[in-house]
Structure formats: structure tokens, C-alpha cells
């Protein structure tokens, strides 16, 4: 009798997780305090966090679908589903989160050279280098292609000057990937290059921005005569917008995942609310039910788009839908959690933890990575073909 290879994979993985996932990492937490971001300056919050990262990195499980050569485990789409199911079964924390995984990885895997992939990706997979994203500028928000940060051609390098804003965790990052204008004359979509810069190599300064949630995940980042060697470019010169667009699609799917992957380790909203309330009132329960129905359906849509991508049908502009639906849902969910928490939820780090901070943070979801209104405009023009 032959064993289904997927069943065999599942059995082996289950064993490995049982033996290797430390007990302290089995609480399914995805909070600001529990996440491991990695990077040169990373201080592990516990020995268990360090051990869990090292063990996963050795198996390629920090980036399970990346090729083995670049630090991943080379899992197929079916294996990836099993991986997430088995991690979920143990309530295992994600061993590593980073913009390197979410953003740089997809960009390099699609547009990078083999040498670039070998150079940059394994350190990301091992959690050794932390990346941030330099996209928005004070004058380039929804109109992102209007970036003004300039790279002057100096032969073997670009000399970069300008300012980025909303650079997430720039103050903690080692490297930045940035959209830089490398041609002052060309039309705005044909003058941008996608450059990689060592933030500790001089000419870069960051200043955290305090947000309404009380923390400073975002920064302003200033470039003053920063030198970027010519080989630190992804894709062709002046064709960075192609890379940026491709990545925005990824970013949108990632942010929308926050809406469908239930916060609280995949637990149902109802269960989270129940922890706070002895008796859910009828109105709140009805609202939570509606949220749950939509959340399950959006989760399935994420799965469907992944299956379509595997079948060679890219989501393209339709990813704007995922971003819009997922983030609006996430905001609703956090409103309901605040409602359920009552006055307990109104204290910073009160009886229900950082619920207020999390709630305030979600308000950015429908702004970052393209506002809900920009998403709807993308759908209406590019998917529905309505006149612009």
C-alpha cells in the first residue's frame, strides 16, 4: 500500500513540530510584544523565542514556500496549507515576521538575479537582517509615483537625497528597499528605480513618529548624500515602478490577511468576546456573527486567489478587492472587541491588555498600502472598465 505523499508530509511535520516547538511558543500570540522581527539588533524576548527561530530557520520553515537554495523549505501550495494547519493545531507562534519575508522576498524572487537572491534572501530567512520599506513621501501618498527622493548617477553609484515617510520600523531596520527617482525628465512611471540600501552605511537618518495608538511603528527617513552602489538595484534602471506595483499587490494581500486570519491566534471573534463578557448582549452577538460570516468568506477568497495564482491566473488588480474587504473587516472586528471590553478596554494595558492600542492601530489598515478609496477606484477602472 502506498502512502499519500501529502499525508506522509503531514505526519512528519506533526512529529517535528511536537518535538521542536517550545511550550512557551504554543499560545498563538500575534501581538506587538510576542512577534519576533529579527535583525542585527534584535533582542530575543525569551530563550524559547530564539530556539524556535533557529530551529525553524534550519528547516526553512520561516519562509516555507521559498526555494531551499534561498533559505526556504520549497513547499508546494498543498504542503503550505498543511504547514499552516499543523502550526494552527499547536497554536504555534509564527517564528519570524518581517518586511524582508513579505516584501523584499517576493520582489527579489520575481525580479532579482540569482546572485542577489543568494546574497539577500538567506539572511532574511534566518532572521539576521531586518528590512524596511521606503515608499511613501510627504508629497507621494495615494499618488505614490510622485516620489521626489532623487538618485544622482555618479558612475559606479547613485547619490541619494530626499525624504521618506511612514517607513515602518525604519529605526530598527538594517536595510531599506526604496523607490528613488533616477531620471528627472522621464514620465513619472518611467523614472523610478527600486534600490537596496544599507541603513548603517552612512547618509541615512530616521525619526520615529508617535501614532494615536501611543507607539511609534512608523518613521520619517532622511537621505543625505547616501551612496548606493549600482549593483544594488532590483530590476532595470527606471523600471522600478514595475517592481513596486508587483509588490503592492503582495502588500495588499498581506494586509487583507490581517482581516481574515483572526487576531487572537485564529480564534473566532465570538470566543474572544466571550472571554470578556459573561453574557453577550443580543446586538453585539448579531454584529459579531455578521463579522464572522464575512471573515470566513474573505478567508476563503484569500485561499481562492492563492489557488488561482498557482493555476497561473494572477489576481492582478483584483488584489485591490482583498485589501479593501480585509481591512474594512478588521476595523469592524476591533470596534466590536472594544465594545465587548466596555470600560476595561479603555485603559492602556488594562485588564484586557493592549486592546485599545490594537484597535487604534487597525485604523491605519484602510490607509496604508493604498487607501480603501484608491482600491475601489482601481476596481472600478481596471476591473469593471468604468471610464476614468
Amino acid at each position, binding site marked *: 500500500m502506498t502512502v499519500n505523499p*501529502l499525508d506522509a508530509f503531514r505526519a512528519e511535520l506533526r512529529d517535528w513540530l511536537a518535538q521542536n516547538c517550545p511550550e512557551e511558543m504554543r499560545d498563538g500570540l500575534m501581538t506587538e510584544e510576542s512577534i519576533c522581527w529579527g535583525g542585527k539588533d534584535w533582542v530575543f524576548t525569551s530563550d524559547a523565542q530564539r530556539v524556535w527561530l533557529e530551529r525553524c530557520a534550519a528547516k526553512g520553515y520561516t519562509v516555507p514556500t521559498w526555494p531551499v537554495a534561498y533559505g526556504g523549505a520549497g513547499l508546494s501550495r*498543498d504542503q503550505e*496549507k498543511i504547514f499552516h494547519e499543523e502550526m494552527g493545531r499547536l497554536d504555534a507562534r509564527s517564528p519570524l515576521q518581517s518586511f524582508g519575508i513579505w516584501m523584499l522576498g517576493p520582489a527579489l524572487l520575481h525580479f532579482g538575479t540569482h546572485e542577489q537572491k543568494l546574497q539577500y534572501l538567506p539572511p532574511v530567512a534566518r532572521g539576521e537582517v531586518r528590512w524596511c520599506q521606503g515608499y511613501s513621501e510627504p508629497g507621494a501618498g495615494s499618488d505614490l509615483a510622485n516620489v521626489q527622493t532623487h538618485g544622482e548617477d555618479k558612475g559606479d553609484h547613485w547619490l541619494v537625497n530626499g525624504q521618506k515617510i511612514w517607513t515602518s520600523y525604519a529605526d530598527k531596520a538594517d536595510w531599506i528597499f526604496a523607490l528613488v527617482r533616477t531620471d528627472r525628465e522621464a514620465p513619472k512611471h518611467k523614472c523610478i528605480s527600486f534600490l537596496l540600501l544599507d541603513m548603517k552605511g552612512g547618509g541615512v537618518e530616521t525619526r520615529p513618529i508617535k501614532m494615536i495608538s501611543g507607539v511609534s511603528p512608523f518613521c520619517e527617513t532622511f537621505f543625505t548624500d547616501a551612496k548606493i552602489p549600482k549593483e544594488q538595484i532590483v530590476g532595470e534602471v527606471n523600471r522600478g515602478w514595475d517592481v513596486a506595483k508587483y509588490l503592492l499587490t503582495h502588500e495588499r494581500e498581506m494586509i487583507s490577511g490581517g482581516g481574515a486570519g483572526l487576531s487572537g491566534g485564529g480564534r*473566532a471573534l*465570538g*470566543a474572544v*468576546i*466571550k472571554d470578556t463578557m459573561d453574557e*453577550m448582549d443580543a446586538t453585539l*452577538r448579531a454584529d*459579531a*456573527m*455578521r463579522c*464572522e*460570516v*464575512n471573515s*470566513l*468568506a*474573505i478567508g*476563503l*477568497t484569500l*485561499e*481562492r486567489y492563492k*489557488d*488561482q495564482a*498557482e*493555476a497561473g*491566473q494572477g489576481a492582478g488588480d*483584483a488584489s485591490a*478587492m482583498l485589501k*479593501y*474587504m480585509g481591512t474594512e473587516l478588521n476595523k469592524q472586528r476591533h470596534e466590536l472587541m472594544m465594545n465587548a471590553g466596555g470600560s476595561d478596554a479603555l485603559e492602556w494595558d488594562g485588564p484586557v491588555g493592549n486592546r485599545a492600542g490594537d484597535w487604534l492601530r487597525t485604523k491605519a489598515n484602510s490607509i496604508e498600502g493604498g487607501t480603501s*478609496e484608491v*482600491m*475601489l*477606484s482601481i*476596481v*472600478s*477602472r481596471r*476591473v*469593471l*472598465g*468604468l*471610464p*476614468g
Partner: protein
Amino acid sequence: MAKLVMNEEETMLADMARGFLDDACPVSKLREMRDAGVTSDAATWKEMADLGWAGVLVPEEAGGSDMGFAAANVIAHEMGKTLAVSPFISSAVIAATALRQVNDARALGALAKIASGDVTYALAVDEGIKFDPEGVQMEAKADGNGFRLNGKKQFVVDGASADRLLVLARTADGLTLFDIPADRVGVNCDASNMIDARDAARITFEDVEATGEDVLGAVDNAMDILKPAINAGQAALAAEMTGLSVGAFTMTVDYLKERKQFGVEIGRFQALQHRAAHLWCEIEVTSSAILNAGRKLDEDSSVAETAVSLAKARATQTAILAVQEGVQMHGGIGMTDAFDMGFYMKRARVSAEWLGDYSYHAEKIAAERGF
């Protein structure tokens, strides 16, 4: 693992169905039937049977095409786009799935007649204003070797034209499912004048005799047979409603591109663009739930209940939104009887109630999710 992507056979089936339905069942056909006071269309059902649709869930040995639940959803979805009138969900999906659970020679004979289109069925469950199969009160009292049925059913969709009825009634220790001819003595059918101009009926049962032969499955144990049948019906109905949403949406977007006000196409106005885009997003998300329900039913219909409820809950929300937005974006013309949007709105409302409304299905999901 089954993929949440339409496979090649399903895409071909959808294209073929579309080709047939555009000719045989455009919305204008429903309008003609409504104007003539006709609620069923036996000739078209026979043609659909010839295409293999009536036997979509009937085994090949009984002359069916046995394409599975996801395929049934594909057909229902296409039917919804132009509001095709047929007993597809009642006969080909619900009755066929119920009979298939029974799996004896008599059931196989009945399945053959469904597949050929010679016999149509309707499901008689509702007694009050809401779908509640577990709460059925109609009595089937033991009488000699058989039973006597007394009671009233309402909202029996396809009930006025059906040849046979699946009747859910209460017996000594539970619920029992009966399969009886619609013309049996004591069965009185009163066609309802439905807002969507389709066939539905109120049916009274007065001392209707039933034998052990008329029982589907085991006495006092209807749900073993009926639950999978209802699930399949709910999934197909959800698919049909999503087709309806797509139909209403397509008309609306076409109108936004044509209609001019202030000297430009109204589709240039961002307020309308965003309404249309939001509706498209809702339809996309609901489509995933439909696809998932079909896949889950085909994998193992006994554990597909939550997936089906999710599909019906989402399809209901989305269809109600699609027709309201459809009327709003068409403006005054959308309110006229001469325009088709009203047909979509009425069908959406009727389908929203049939086989469990939004709350019914949301409650099922809530129970499964632990609150």
C-alpha cells in the same frame, strides 16, 4: 486537496449552460410567463433533462450524468443570471440527493425518472413563516400498516407543478420523510400568487394515506436522508442567487457606461464607481464561499454543513445588496415594471427566504464557531 478554482470541465459546463440559457431562458421568457399567468415550463425542463441537468446528481446506472455538487452549483449559477424558471433545485438537487441516500431499487427507479425529466418533485417542509425543519408539527399517525398524514405546508416551491412531494412529518418518535404523488387523495394544492411569479404552493393534507413503501429512509429518522438533500439544495440555491447577483450587477455596470447626465456617462462619477466597485467586491467574496461549498459537498457531504450555511448566508446578503444597488444606480427606470431589475429584486427576496434566511444560516455558523 480540492482547489478553489473552476476546473476545465466546470468552465466548459458553464459556457455550455450559458449558451443554452441565453436562447431558452432569457429574462423576457419569465416576463412572458408572468404576463400569461404561467409559473412552470415543462417543455424547457425536458430540454434541460436532455442536456443532463435533471440527472446531474443521478448515478449513471439510473441514466444520470452524475457530475457532482460543484457541477450542480455551476448550472444553478448560470440559471440565476437570467432568472431561468425550472424545478432544477427541487427535483434535480434536493429530491435526487434524498433518493440517492436511500439507495434501493425503488429509489433507483425514481432517480431514473428525475434524470429523464419525466417526474418532478417539490419539498414540503415549511409550516410557519420561517424555515425550521426540526420544528415540523404536521402529524403522520400510525394507522394499521401505514400512516395518515394531516396538516398544512406553505411555501412549497415548485409545489403546484410537481408530480411528487417529499413531505416531512412527525411520527411517534421523531420526523419521517414521505415520498408521495401530488395527486394522492386528500392532498389539496393551492398555488400561491408569488411576487417573483414562480411556482410555490400552500398544500393541505387531509387524512392522506401513506404506506411503509412511501417512507424514504427509516421511520422517525428523516434527517439522515433529508439533511444532505437540504444542504445540497441550499448550496445550489446560494449559487443561483450569486448568479442572480452577477446578472443584476452586469446590467448595472452596462448602464453606468451608457447613461449620460451632465453631458457625461454617469459611470465617470466616483460616487457611483465606488458603489459599483464595492458590489463587485462583495460578489467576488461570495463566489469563494459558493465554490467552497461545492468542493466540500463533493469531498464529504456529511461535514459540509457550515460551508453550505456560509454560502447561503453570504449569497443572501450579496443578492439583496446587488438588487438594491441595481435599482438605485438605474434611477427611476429601475423602478418600472417594463425594466427587468424588478424581476431580480423579487426573485432575490423569495430566494432569501427559501431553505433558511440569513439569520438561520448565520446562527448555524455561530453555533459551530462557539458562540
